[in-house]
């Protein structure tokens, strides 16, 4: 399974990057216009042709793709026009903030899903359980950016409890306290947008596990409810959950894009939007590739985790 994913990763990455270049070549977008900016209109045809020749934009797209790929392999990622920085620098500055946001949000969502899901499955029909399913279905129907805007208007504007934008207050020094305060809302929104799926899934698979032979047997043995649920039902119920978290990574990326945009969080996801709006092609192409690689890596890790957690799989090799 893991090996199959690894085999799939390379063609997917190649395919995605080829598709991006082909789409760019077919699109009305002229890379020269992007490069020259305002000067594009004032520069004469002759100048345009000369620069196009220097940049190689007059060549076929697969030739340009070949150059790009070659430079990528030698570590040269090109220069981002919208940030006026090398792409590598943009990524290096922004990646940690995205990882912080996504990591905190995912951890929060997983912990909440486990707690609430276990509780509502164990106390099936209790008030928590009766509340959980409809609330999850409702939250599922609300796009993350609406959740984000709602959180901004309630907690940021109406109540004034938490800052709604950026990494720090305007003009403030970058400090752990500042970042932590500014992280609360975006991380919470991102977690809430991922929660319903995870929660309903934990509940569902735990309900199934509670009816299985080995759980009934554990209960018949006189073990405490706590042990029965936590040590017998949950471990088997969690196996599919691990894969689910891996499979949900694309959704997490989408959520991160929206949350970073709404909260002006200076992460990579925001850079995706900026580079798209400005048609900053070198940055956009690399970020697309990077995100795809991250998602592939995520599902690979989920598979590895599954193999490590389930002795039956590792035994089969």
């Amino acid at each position: 399974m893991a090996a199959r994913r690894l085999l799939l990763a390379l063609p997917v990455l190649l395919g995605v990057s080829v598709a991006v270049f082909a789409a760019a070549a077919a699109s009305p977008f002229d890379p020269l216009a992007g490069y020259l900016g305002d000067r594009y209109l004032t520069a004469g045809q002759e100048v345009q042709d000369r620069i196009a020749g220097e940049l190689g934009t007059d060549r076929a797209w697969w030739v340009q793709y070949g150059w790009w790929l070659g430079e990528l392999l030698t570590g040269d990622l090109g220069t981002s026009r919208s940030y006026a920085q090398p792409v590598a620098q943009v990524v290096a500055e922004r990646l940690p903030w995205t990882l912080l946001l996504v990591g905190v949000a995912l951890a929060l969502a997983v912990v909440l899903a486990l707690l609430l899901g276990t509780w509502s499955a164990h106390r099936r029909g209790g008030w928590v359980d009766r509340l959980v399913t409809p609330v999850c279905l409702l939250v599922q129907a609300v796009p993350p950016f609406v959740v984000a805007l709602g959180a901004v208007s309630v907690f940021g504007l109406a109540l004034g409890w938490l800052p709604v934008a950026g990494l720090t207050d305007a003009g403030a020094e970058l400090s752990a306290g500042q970042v932590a305060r500014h992280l609360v809302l975006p991380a919470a929104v991102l977690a809430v947008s991922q929660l319903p799926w995870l929660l309903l899934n934990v509940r569902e698979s735990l309900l199934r596990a509670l009816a299985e032979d080995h759980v009934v047997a554990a209960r018949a043995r006189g073990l405490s409810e706590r042990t029965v649920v936590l040590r017998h039902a949950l471990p088997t119920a969690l196996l599919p959950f691990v894969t689910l978290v891996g499979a949900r990574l694309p959704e997490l990326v989408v959520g991160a894009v929206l949350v970073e945009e709404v909260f002006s969080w200076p992460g990579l996801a925001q850079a995706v939007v900026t580079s798209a709006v400005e048609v900053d092609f070198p940055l956009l192409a690399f970020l697309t590739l990077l995100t795809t690689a991250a998602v592939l890596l995520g599902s690979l890790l989920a598979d590895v985790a599954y193999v490590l957690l389930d002795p039956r799989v590792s035994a089969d090799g």
Partner: protein
Amino acid sequence: MSTALAVSGLTVRFELPRRGSRVHAATDVSFDLRRGRVLALVGESGCGKSVLASALLRLLPGNATVTGRALLGELDLLAAPGRVLRGEVRGRRVALVPQSAATALTPVRTARAQLEETVRELVPGADPRGRADELAHRVGLQPGDLDRYPHQLSGGMAQRVVVALALAGDPEVVLADEPTAGLDRPLVDRTLGLLREVADGGRAVLLITHDLGALLRTPAAADDLAVMYAGRLLETGPAREVLAAPAHDYTRDLLGALPSGGLVPVPGAPPSLTDLPDGCAYHRRRPDAGPCDGGDVVHRSGDRATRCRPAGAGPC
């Protein structure tokens, strides 16, 4: 030969969601489990045998209603609060050897982890590792076998592990629910031998099985025999006597269906337990077997009891 668990008038009904139907899983079942003895409860598949074990430990789903009494000393298992069942009875005084050992073990943890956990919870103060090894030895496992995951255990080893788990809390009563189902003949005999040893250690054992042939093969396996049909006990008595001279037509037919009895299949098929009418269900299946008195009266003579008058003992 004191009584460890006295069951009387045990009746189990399941309410079905549709059309107000009820499943008559067990009706007016009475028997005593005595220390040092094995009571074998036999019957065809689907006659309600397995429900009994779950009913006694109160592990049935919410749509079941259980009436009757099951006295464990002073304690009525069927009336005791759930807290008492969880904290004092299950595993500690009454243990279950579940059906299909392979699926009764949690697949992602080693046998040792589960056995030591059970020891830790049921016997506070014991050394879990030492006691687990000792239990393994008692059921004929090597201590090293415990370090395997359930899928790495053979069927016989898994069977031994679940017996060890049942013995972990040193219970007075062991309920073995089809412990031999799906095992090959040598394993069946070994499992029966294991339960015999458990009983010889002073415990009362209920051996639920559909394998009458195995009991015939190893006469030492069971001291007493109860024959169940459509949720009722049709015949009870000392195993040797019942097997030698069955009193009820059903027992006779079951023995006749075995290779030693001439392989004459029991005619017809077991009835559905849903909305079962009162009266003797077996003589509805075999009206030709002779007259019967309706099946609601129990006839006793000495250690033996039958539910309808023996065929040929006069018209109803």
